[in-house]
């Protein structure tokens, strides 16, 4: 069985600093593996642990620096890693990104069973790329998945969680599964894994390698564009500081937090 895990390198959004001109200071911004993609990788590695014939490929699209998150995926236990890297890919929206990834999967793999994605990336937070990859490949998808129960004989059974409750869904493979945080164990880097990652080569693919024309990729291939970007407005209040629990209790009661 072959599992492809799509991984995005994202800036650590919890640590954003602003320039004087209200733009994001990109210098010195740490890049990390998108946490939701890390959950997806955890699930893939958990399946691999139970079935020795499972191969896990980590796939990313991004600049050369994205090699780092792929090296991490290898160290955690992925068998191999592919980086789609080309200047012509840059500026892609979710449509062009998904098209690029779907073309790469079509061109690179004769056979695969599951494409696992994180439900969101914490920078863009669109939740669109996974379903869009599924659409380009003509595959079914299950989103908002928090558990994988069973995969065998051409099907996978997953638990999807929505505001209404949880659904147990059986989906025919190949399929795209988008993961939220679930119950899976967090994978840890072992010494063996770290050594293997150091030795492994990351397979680079450019636009020519995946049969895509420059008009279909990157900014050019994107149906959407950003017309303006601005800093989010903050709530405009003056904080009144309170120092005792009595006073805090009174405040809570006065603003309606009184259950009586």
């Amino acid at each position, binding site marked *: 069985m072959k599992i492809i895990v799509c991984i995005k390198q994202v800036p650590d959004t919890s640590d954003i600093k602003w320039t004087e001109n209200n733009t994001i200071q990109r210098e010195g911004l740490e890049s990390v593996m998108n946490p939701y993609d890390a959950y997806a990788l955890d699930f893939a590695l958990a399946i691999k642990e139970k079935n020795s014939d499972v191969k896990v490929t980590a796939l990313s699209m991004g600049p050369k620096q994205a090699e780092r998150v792929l090296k991490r995926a290898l160290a955690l236990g992925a068998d191999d890693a592919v980086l789609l890297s080309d200047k012509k890919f840059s500026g892609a929206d979710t449509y062009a990104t998904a098209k690029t990834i779907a073309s790469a999967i079509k061109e690179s793999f004769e056979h695969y069973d599951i494409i696992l994605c994180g439900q969101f990336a914490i920078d863009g937070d669109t939740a669109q790329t996974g379903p869009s990859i599924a659409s380009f490949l003509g595959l079914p998808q299950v989103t908002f998945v928090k558990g994988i129960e069973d995969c065998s004989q051409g099907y996978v059974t997953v638990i999807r969680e929505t505001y209404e409750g949880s*659904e147990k869904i059986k989906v025919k493979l190949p399929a795209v599964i988008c993961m939220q945080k679930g119950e899976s164990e967090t994978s840890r880097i072992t010494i063996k894994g770290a050594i293997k990652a150091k030795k492994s080569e990351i397979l680079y693919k450019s636009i020519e390698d995946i049969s895509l024309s420059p008009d279909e990729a990157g900014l050019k291939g994107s149906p959407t564009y950003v017309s303006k970007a601005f800093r989010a407005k903050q709530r405009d209040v003056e904080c009144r500081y309170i120092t005792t629990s009595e006073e805090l209790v009174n405040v809570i009661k006065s603003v309606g937090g009184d259950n009586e």
Partner: protein
Amino acid sequence: MSNGILIWTEITRDGFIHPVTFELAGKANELSPKLNNSPVMGFVVLKTGKIDDYKEVFEINGFDKVFYVEDDTFDFYKSDLYSRVALDMVKEIDPEILLIGATENGRDIAPRISTMLHTGLTADCTELDITDDGKLAATRPTFGGQLMATILSKKFPQMATVRPKVFKPMKSFEKKKTAFINMNLDLVGFEPSIEILNFIKSQKSDLNSLDSAEIIVAGGKGMQSKSGFNLIKQLADKLGGVIGASRVAVEMGLASQECQIGQTGKTVSPKLYIACGISGALQHTIGMDKSSKIIAINSDKNAPIFKIADYGYVGDAFEIIPQLIEKL
């Protein structure tokens, strides 16, 4: 020539129309005059014979037209079936704008439709407007809620998913003379690939208890442990409120995903929001800064949460919360 603003109607498993549908209709009625009074339209897939149950609610919520497809297999959302039917309907209706509520199912179906139509889709918007030349300008938070981006599409229909609770439904209850149009579609070549084996209803039963909560007590990284979250729960119970959590707290396993408030979680606007051990990163505050009153409890006096809080307590949450539980 494409025309009109089309809205996907999500029907819950309990047979209600998801409120975001009407919030979108409210907004669409506001945008329509800027688009030569383009019609506000809904589309829905239903179990056979059910349309009559919903007619009035469409009429009072500002729909000019509602397109529907009926079949006995349409009992609840299935990604493969519903996205196929919705795609066929959208192709035939050919709207200028297509809006979908950013629920889990909405965020599942929208990118399938947009990809198959080779058009643009803007996710999880918090503001919609029409530009001077008649294009949809969809604004959304990005970069963890710190940056707002206004996005336009070069292709049609221009699509956006919109967060529940951001817009208001129509205020006036003046009925429109809604036209209901039954579309006959046959699903040539459709083969199901998804089977729903079972469904366990969320214990919080009703639609998003967090969404409708008047009081929310939320915990962040500063609550450190499950026992810390237990305090949050006790305080919430005492106040008749609901618990919430920051993304980091959910990632640490302190609270479940459905409690998550912020950009990758829910947007809430309770009467009172008590933030405990939450530093106040924008990706969290974007989901709660519409609360009427905010009380922040944090040991770090420089935590950004105090900048948006009405009341602040600088100190140890583990000391103050038990005192509050006792004295309230």
